[in-house]
């Protein structure tokens, strides 16, 4: 669901194809019949953006038919936990949870939630604020965390308590009947029930079901909740932490995982720690640690991660006395993500931009983003080919149409040519968190340089420019540890390129080392919170355990692919674990759930966890180990709690903290929808969805007669993203040379459109032109008794390249998921007409 795997991840699909040959059943739920559907045993049509309704229907089916994996649910999830009496569900409040309040002025949200009422009910009352004040007096971070440990949560292992998570979940989804699923999604009941039967029959001790998703689930104003729905379902079915189970995110770029881990993202610093934030209680390092550390579970080690990170930033200048340079570190004070940044840029608030291998001129509400680029004083683009972003000032539709003249655009633009993967050495982290090293095979041509070269050279220049500054604001850059030049005499001799940084030195800093001896760290277990260890990214710690042994460079596959975890091919963070929470692959007593699904188990003789993977559990903690009351970290968990990162060691069906838009997923309509929310007529959208106000960013109203057709955007096998890496390649250009819009013969007939006719597609933002591809692979759906047409457009084209075409993102809107600010381009409203 939410993924067109055969098209967008064909080589990952190789394993699905092999599984099919071994008898696996493949189900594809998608608005369009795609190349994945073609391979599926069952294709399930649905209206774009209604995944939560569909999955919620499955959850209800599982609960009402008692198909859940009881042993797993009781022991490994928080199903038995009792929730606060003040919590009120969407069923009580007509579509919103308790805690909804108005957002502060000037925010990009109308409402936000206060999650105070969503919390576990404790066995005794607990005053967090008071505990925090006490903790501040502690002498060490460890003692501080100790004082923050809350009392245990109330539980009912029978799952019968009306305030138990299990009963709350049951009640929350009680109206997601097959009838309602059909009315909302358009998927016929019999097909839905076939899915429900297949999935439940294929889950349990002997079998597992896996869900695979991609942007079809994420690019919505409730994207995170969609994945949450699946997590809930998979936990109920006992499919998490087990081989052949889980929820597989198919990510889209070579190291999109790595760039999230080593985050070129505004909201987080290394290893998934929150970025210091002026809106939170982050004033000092102590405040930060008190706010961000979960005292129980593995995250209790956050002080060690944070201090080691600060040491990697500021080196010797970071001392306990100056809070390890915490004050020099910038703090965020708002949403600086892509879309609001482009809005700010359009308003002239952003003056300069450095853009590497990304193409905002073709991104969401692209015309608005191009307009924003014109407000910049300067723009640096680094890419392999001339992108739309580099050339907006002379080649964009606005300039080509004469609306704007290059002479009127002030932006100074630099376009640096890039080296390509074969011309650079370094690592990529793939979608399964596997870090792989790629060797440099040849020098890049001309002035092409690696991106690391660019940033290194820029840093050296800036360090020099700031060397003599005495201003306090420049302390950060002055003290920034920048030791990436090759040691004298070690620079490679077989290259004409000079000034490259030493990649192994960069990895050393990411991996971490003993501050004094510079000895490489072998695992994040060695990290300290006193500054004696330096480590940029705790989750990558262990990738480079000793000199000459970079595990990302391991290239020894399992013989005959058995057992197939391939622990000696690349390195998967954390600690080379291939399946997270794999303790759940064994039953509470530590034995495999079944021989067929054997993966990690407790070896009583050796007194340790063994199996085909690196156990994601304390290596020698026996299944019968009791939890230590009042303890911090993993000691707070018993030997039957596989979810070690969670405060209670359990998989969360109900999510008390961490989600902005509710502890349980709920069906909402996309921001633009042709139908009203049948579940909650009074609450059409996610109440706290983000929307960025701009005259060029308007939305169609609900069931807008001018925009009656659902538009979904997507990618094709033959191209990559906005096409900068494919539309310049003749071999790929010829495979899909032109932009098209897929529509059903029924819609085409209604609109008088023939195959290959030019069609104008209009949304509330703008209109573009594409060729019609009339195909029975698309079909009209019956939504609550009304015919709803869907059309689809691949978004790979732009105005540069061998093959060009209109920019589909000119149609999309800047609206965002409240958790992560991802946009909603999978479900929009549009109209189509034949171009005269």
């Amino acid at each position, binding site marked *: 669901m939410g993924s067109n795997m055969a098209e967008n991840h064909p080589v990952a699909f190789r394993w699905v194809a092999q599984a099919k040959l071994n008898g696996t059943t493949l189900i594809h739920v998608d608005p369009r019949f795609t190349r994945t559907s073609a391979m599926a045993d069952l294709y399930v049509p649905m209206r774009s953006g209604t995944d939560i309704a569909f999955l919620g229907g499955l959850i209800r089916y599982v609960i009402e038919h008692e198909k859940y994996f009881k042993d797993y649910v009781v022991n490994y999830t928080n199903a038995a936990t009792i929730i606060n009496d003040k919590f009120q569900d969407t069923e009580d409040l007509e579509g919103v949870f308790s805690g909804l309040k108005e957002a502060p002025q000037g925010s990009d949200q109308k409402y936000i939630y206060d999650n105070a009422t969503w919390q576990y009910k404790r066995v005794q009352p607990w005053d967090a604020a008071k505990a925090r004040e006490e903790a501040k007096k502690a002498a060490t971070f460890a003692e501080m965390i100790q004082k923050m440990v809350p009392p245990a949560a109330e539980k009912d292992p029978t799952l019968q308590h009306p305030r138990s998570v299990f009963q709350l979940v049951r009640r929350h989804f009680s109206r997601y009947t097959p009838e309602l699923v059909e009315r909302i999604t358009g998927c016929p009941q019999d097909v839905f029930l076939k899915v429900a039967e297949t999935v439940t029959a294929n889950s349990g001790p002997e079998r597992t079901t896996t869900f695979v998703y991609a942007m079809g689930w994420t690019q919505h104003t409730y994207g995170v909740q969609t994945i949450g729905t699946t997590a809930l379902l998979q936990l109920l079915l006992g499919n998490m932490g087990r081989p052949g189970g889980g929820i597989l995110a198919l990510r889209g770029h070579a190291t999109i995982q790595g760039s999230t881990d080593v985050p070129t993202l505004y909201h987080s610093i290394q290893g998934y720690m929150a970025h210091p934030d002026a809106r939170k209680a982050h004033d000092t390092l102590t405040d930060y640690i008190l706010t961000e550390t979960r005292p129980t579970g593995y995250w209790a080690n956050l002080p060690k991660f944070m201090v080691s990170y600060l040491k990697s930033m500021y080196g010797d200048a970071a001392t306990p006395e100056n809070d390890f340079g915490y004050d020099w570190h910038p703090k965020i004070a708002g949403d600086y993500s892509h879309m609001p940044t482009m809005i700010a840029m359009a308003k002239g608030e952003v003056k300069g931009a450095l853009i590497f291998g990304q193409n905002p001129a073709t991104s969401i509400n692209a015309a608005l983003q191009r307009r924003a680029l014109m407000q910049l004083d300067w723009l640096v683009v680094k890419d392999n080919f001339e992108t739309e972003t580099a050339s907006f000032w002379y080649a964009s539709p606005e300039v080509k149409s004469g609306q704007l003249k290059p002479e009127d655009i002030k932006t100074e633009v630099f376009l640096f040519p890039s080296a390509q993967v074969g011309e650079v050495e370094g690592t990529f982290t793939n979608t399964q968190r596997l870090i792989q090293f790629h060797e440099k095979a040849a020098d890049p041509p001309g002035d092409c340089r690696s991106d690391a070269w660019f940033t290194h050279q820029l840093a050296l220049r800036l360090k020099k420019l700031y060397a003599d500054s005495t201003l306090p604001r420049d302390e950060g850059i002055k003290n920034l540890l920048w030791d990436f030049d090759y040691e004298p005499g070690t620079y490679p001799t077989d290259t004409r390129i000079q000034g490259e940084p030493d990649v192994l030195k960069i990895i050393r800093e990411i991996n971490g080392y003993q501050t004094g001896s510079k000895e490489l760290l072998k695992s994040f277990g060695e990290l300290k919170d006193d500054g004696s260890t330096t480590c940029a990214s705790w989750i990558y710690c262990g990738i480079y355990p000793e000199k000459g042994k970079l595990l990302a460079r391991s290239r020894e596959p399992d013989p005959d692919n058995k057992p197939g975890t391939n622990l000696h091919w690349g390195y998967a963070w954390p600690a080379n674990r291939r399946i997270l929470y794999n303790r759940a692959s064994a039953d509470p007593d530590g034995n495999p759930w079944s021989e067929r699904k054997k993966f990690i188990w407790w070896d009583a003789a050796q007194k340790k966890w063994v199996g085909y993977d690196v156990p994601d559990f304390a290596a020698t903690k026996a299944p019968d180990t009791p939890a230590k009351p009042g303890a911090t970290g993993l000691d707070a968990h018993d030997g039957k709690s596989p979810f070690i990162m969670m405060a209670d060691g359990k998989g969360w069906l109900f999510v008390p903290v961490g989600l902005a838009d509710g502890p349980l997923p709920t069906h909402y309509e996309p921001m633009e929808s042709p139908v009203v929310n049948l579940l909650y007529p009074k609450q059409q959208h996610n109440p706290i969805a983000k929307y960025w106000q701009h005259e060029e960013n308007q939305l169609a109203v609900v069931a807008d007669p001018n925009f009656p057709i659902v538009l979904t955007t997507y990618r094709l096998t033959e191209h990559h993203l906005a096409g900068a890496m494919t539309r310049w390649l*003749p071999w790929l250009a010829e495979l899909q040379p032109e932009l098209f819009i897929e529509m059903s013969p029924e819609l085409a007939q209604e609109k008088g459109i023939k195959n290959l006719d030019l069609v104008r597609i209009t949304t509330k933002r703008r209109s573009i032109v594409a060729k019609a591809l009339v195909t*029975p692979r698309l079909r009209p759906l019956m939504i609550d008794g009304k015919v709803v047409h869907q059309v689809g457009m691949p978004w790979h084209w732009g105005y540069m390249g061998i093959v060009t075409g209109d920019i589909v993102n000119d149609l999309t809107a800047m609206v965002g998921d409240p958790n992560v600010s991802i946009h909603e381009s999978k479900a929009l409203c549009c109209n189509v007409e034949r171009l005269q």
Partner: protein
Amino acid sequence: MAEPMGFFTDTSVCIGCKACEVACKAWNQLPARNGGKVPLTGQSYDNTVELSGIQWRHVKFIEQFSPDRSSGRWLMMSDVCKHCVQAGCLEVCPTGAIIRTEFDTVVIQSDVCNGCRACIAACPFGVIDINPETNTAMKCTLCYDRMQAGMVPACAQACPTHSIQFGPISELRQHAEARLAQLQAQGVSQARLYGHDESILGGLNSFYLLLDEPEVYGLPSNPQLPSRNVAPSAGLSAAGAVALGVLGLVGLRKQRMDKLAAEAREQQEGDGSHAG
């Protein structure tokens, strides 16, 4: 002599990704048509249209849906030279450019071909065409160079779903039959093999598992060798030539007879006058 080698293309697992097309072009350094700037065909996801001198692998897309969508399939098939055991192209080639290799495959030697294009017309599958860069006839070589080095052909190596399988023909036939049995057991009654036995041109060294009639995939149901027409056609022509010769002779004889008769008449008349 090495063992006969070839492809078994199992269309039931083809995802139409076209990796085979690109891997083939990359290995054989074949150009894109018109530098990649080609029009959208509107025929499903097929924009490379056909096999040609620069397109040695071609993925076909066939959309089969009932009007109410209660049933529907999207068939895909990666087409390629069949490396026929009885190869029409090899028969007609006048220069000896087309050869049968030690792997029982059929290869066009580009440095021998003079571009007469007889092979193009002879191929029952429309595989061969002129490569505009070399101006010689070209087609899949089954990566003869890679095979000689013990490597897997580029397309088969790239194919993510094992739709394109490469190996000794005898092994591939076993795989194919097992897969067919599996599909038929799953109720895919339309599944069939094409070219796996000797009924088609003595066997195709690149054979297929299809999910429908061959014609649906653009394959002839009964491909034949061009040479089948040589004897009857030449015989009729030879008979015609003889007939023409006879006709001419008869005419000449008649003419001569007429002439003789006329002369005789003339003579008679002359004699008569003389006599008279």
